[in-house]
């Protein structure tokens, strides 16, 4: 593709550009990367179609992980949902399926995410507020009542207590008579990014990773269609990172999990095909597309050439995308619909496997049914009306997008070197490297926004004095009382002896550094609560306080 440029014509254009008055704002991406006015074959020195780009479904997958991409099958439209009690969320799940959603995605409330029970004093005011409260296997049963989990794929966003929740899910599946080998879905189970950005932290980094690997190892052997980790850049980006940092830190986390699985004695081709990823879909369309394309190429290269994976599925980076929550505004909230549509376009042009589009009211509250329907409709319009699904990787070969893709890959590799120079992933976490990088980027963006170098429509430009509030979803305080009562009822009904015996077994397995899933399954069946299991584990692992940067 890198054909010669006619110098004479080029100079003529260059003179015109130089003579033109400078623009009002410096042309940079949302991440602050300077962008040239024009890209030509000159930018793609040494670029050869076959070796540099190749075909979709073939190494290094820059153009996509499947040969036919969306011509063969559309991405999965998967809206994240959860609030109140398990019963309320169960109703929302059924509502979404009725509207044509093709996968379920569970949001847990903050106490559950933090490994606390609903009746813990620290949970006060938080129960059922940002997601669904799950304390025991009873709640898990209620959450999926009347939904065939042998047929629909289910995603669960949970990290510090992921192993416990996975045990609840598996024990419940068994109770429902669903074969584990049929289960499809994803558990986020990515504790590393909690230390970089998301802050749902319970144990110190080393045992946190150990627990994550327990889930990966167990699922590799017993739940073969399940994605036992979703290595997530989403939250890193939400915390304020640049696109390149999101890419680099996410892949670095993934590489750390690979190293740890290998250290357990797993073979790379046993587990790598089921590692999945989760990226943000932010405002800057081309930068985002470049990020996804680079992610696939860098991952494929590492897995094939560094780890020696032979199964092609080990090389393929499959990812879920969610539009950027941090880009949503509370001023003129309907404008968020437009932001989300462009962000979704970026994810689809970048070849995502599944997508969540945020609802326009999500800076205000959890989405209303009206807002969540519009968000889903945004994906359906994209899929069926815009024609972007007709050809694979439509931006492939663009001088601009290929240049950005190369730059992005280079930046990611640069970060890998810096992390290694700090002694690897865990030492870099302990030294606050990731948090500092992200906080610096967040602050840099704020300054650009304050100086109006970056315009946010309706916020620092095109404001409107009049405000038209949206109807938003409110969570009844009764939810907390109801959930607390439910958990206390379980504590009374269950056998205290069984609960203690199974928790003792969990503790012993943790001390012996055995895979915890078998004992966690027993604890789940004995109706132990999430909080009780986490406390038992903390006796062995210790607790962790978030570092301040």
């Amino acid at each position, binding site marked *: 593709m890198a054909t010669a440029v006619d110098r004479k014509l080029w100079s003529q254009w260059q003179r015109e550009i130089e003579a033109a008055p400078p623009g009002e704002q410096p042309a940079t991406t949302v991440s602050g990367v300077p962008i040239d006015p024009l890209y030509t074959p000159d930018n793609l020195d040494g670029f050869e179609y076959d070796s540099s780009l190749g075909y979709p479904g073939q190494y290094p997958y820059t153009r996509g992980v499947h040969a036919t991409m969306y011509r063969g099958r559309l991405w999965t439209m998967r809206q994240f949902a959860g609030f109140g009690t398990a019963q309320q969320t169960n109703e929302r799940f059924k509502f979404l399926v009725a509207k044509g959603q093709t996968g379920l995605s569970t949001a847990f409330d*903050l*106490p559950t*995410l*933090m490994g*606390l029970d609903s009746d813990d004093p*620290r*949970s*006060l*005011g*938080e129960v059922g*507020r*940002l997601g669904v409260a799950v304390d025991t296997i009873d709640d898990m049963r209620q959450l999926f009542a009347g939904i065939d989990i042998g047929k629909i794929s289910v995603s669960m966003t949970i990290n510090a207590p992921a192993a416990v929740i996975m045990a609840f899910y598996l024990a419940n599946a068994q109770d429902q008579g669903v074969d584990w080998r049929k289960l499809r879905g994803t558990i986020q189970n990515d504790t590393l990014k909690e230390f970089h950005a*998301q*802050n*749902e932290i319970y144990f110190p980094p080393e045992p946190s990773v150990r627990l994550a690997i327990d889930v990966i190892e167990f699922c590799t052997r017993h739940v073969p269609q399940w994605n036992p980790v979703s290595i997530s850049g989403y939250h890193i980006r*939400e*915390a*304020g990172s640049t696109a390149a940092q999101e890419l680099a830190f996410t892949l670095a986390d993934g590489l750390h999990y690979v190293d740890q699985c290998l250290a357990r004695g797993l073979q790379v081709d046993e587990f790598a095909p089921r590692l999945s990823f989760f990226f943000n879909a932010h405002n800057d369309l081309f930068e985002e597309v470049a990020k996804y394309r680079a992610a696939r190429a860098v991952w494929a290269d590492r897995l094939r050439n560094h780890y020696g994976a032979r199964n092609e599925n080990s090389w393929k980076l499959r990812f879920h995308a969610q539009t950027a929550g*941090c880009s949503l*505004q*509370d*001023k003129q909230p309907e404008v968020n619909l437009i932001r989300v549509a462009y962000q979704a376009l970026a994810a689809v042009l970048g070849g995502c496997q599944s997508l969540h589009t945020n609802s326009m009211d999500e*800076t*205000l*509250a959890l989405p209303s049914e009206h807002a969540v329907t519009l968000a889903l409709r945004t994906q359906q319009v994209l899929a069926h009306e815009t024609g972007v699904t007709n050809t694979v990787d439509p931006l492939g070969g663009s001088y601009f997008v290929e240049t950005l893709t190369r730059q992005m890959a280079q930046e990611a590799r640069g970060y890998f070197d810096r992390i290694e120079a700090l002694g690897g992933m865990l030492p870099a976490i302990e030294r606050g490297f990731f948090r500092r990088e992200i*906080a610096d980027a*967040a*602050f840099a963006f*704020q300054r650009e*926004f*304050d100086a109006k170098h970056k315009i*946010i429509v309706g*916020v*620092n430009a095109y404001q409107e004095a009049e*405000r038209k*509030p949206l109807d*938003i979803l409110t*969570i009844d305080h009764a939810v907390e009382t109801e959930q607390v009562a439910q958990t206390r009822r379980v504590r009374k009904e269950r056998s205290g002896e069984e609960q203690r015996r199974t928790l003792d077994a969990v503790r012993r397995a943790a001390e012996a550094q055995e895979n915890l899933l078998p004992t966690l399954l027993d604890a789940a069946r004995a109706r132990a609560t999430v909080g009780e299991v986490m406390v038992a584990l903390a006796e062995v692992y210790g607790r962790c*306080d*978030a*570092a*301040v*940067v």
Partner: protein
Amino acid sequence: MVKCVENQIPLRIVLAKVGLDGHDRGVKVVSRALRDAGFHVIYPGLWQSPEAVVRTVADEDADWLGISLLSGTHMTLVPRIVEMLRAAGLDHVGVLVGGIIPETDVPKLLELGVARVFGPGTPMAEIIDFLRAHGSRTHA
């Protein structure tokens, strides 16, 4: 001779993340902007209980307390903190709230005695100007 400008003691502000909410992008950006603007910022980190926040305000002899909440628990936690400040004889400390606060809750928070609610998209200068305009009642 160089004329000495008014000898100003920097305003002291405690910024607090209370409850389980881990969204700390905003609070970190604000703390850095206030620090750069010459304020004395005390940020004790995530997961502070209301009791711990009030203790920090007292120990640090703060002029202002800025509470950051993006988890929807503001109507549970802010009234508790305001009440506890009052009980501790710290009602001269101005209280600001930042984060995701639905519009219908803003008047309720102001009624409780919160001086101002800053939502997403607030320019840093707005917060800085507000604090400078209101100054200190602790060190009046």
